[in-house]
């Protein structure tokens, strides 16, 4: 499964990640003032390398990531997924 830059950006935007512009784009998922998950992406375009690693950092399995890309997951769903995985 591949992820394109714009797809990841859409996920980060929809899940309301806090982003910081650095050497790479750094993204943090904050819930109730706690930083729960973080990831990053390079500044290139097209397919992202390290897709497996990015998915692991987001704590999503392939099916969940597919749903996130397809916009059938929202922030609340994501929080629920993280809660079920004991990350909240």
């Amino acid at each position, binding site marked *: 499964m591949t992820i394109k830059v714009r797809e990841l950006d859409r996920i980060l935007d929809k899940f309301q990640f806090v982003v910081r512009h*650095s050497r790479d784009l750094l993204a943090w998922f904050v819930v109730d003032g706690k930083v*729960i998950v*973080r990831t990053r992406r*390079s500044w290139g375009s097209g397919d992202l*390398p*390290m897709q497996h690693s990015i998915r692991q950092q987001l704590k999503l399995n392939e099916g969940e990531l597919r749903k996130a890309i397809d916009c059938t997951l929202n922030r609340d769903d994501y929080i629920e997924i993280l809660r079920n995985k004991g990350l909240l």
Partner: protein
Amino acid sequence: MIPTEQLRILNDTPASDPADEAHIEQKTQFRELGKAQIADQIKRALKPMPDHILIGSLRDGRLRVTSPIKITFMAEAQHVIAEAEEFNEFGYGSNKSESIIDIQHTISELFLTLEAEKEALGPELRLTWLSLQQKIQKYDY
């Protein structure tokens, strides 16, 4: 490297006596030995790097690595991915050297960011922060 004496004999002017069979045999032996040495050198040059290394620096003057960090490599399309599994962090580049530099910067940035946010980390990132502290120290200037 092929020894100088061996090269000299290989490239030397013909034996003073072309009929000198011992000299011809010696040249043949050296030629074969030279081929084997060159083949060995090529083999060494083409030998792939190991699939993991230990790094002892982050190329950041603010941070000191106190215990080696294991970096595992993976090839992905035209990229080399360098992964530090213990921190769930990765870097990449067009070759291993670039990927190492990238992950060094990334780990450094992760350390400094988690340090700044250490009072507000979720359970997993708190564990990552503890792992980072076990291997990296910040210099006190």
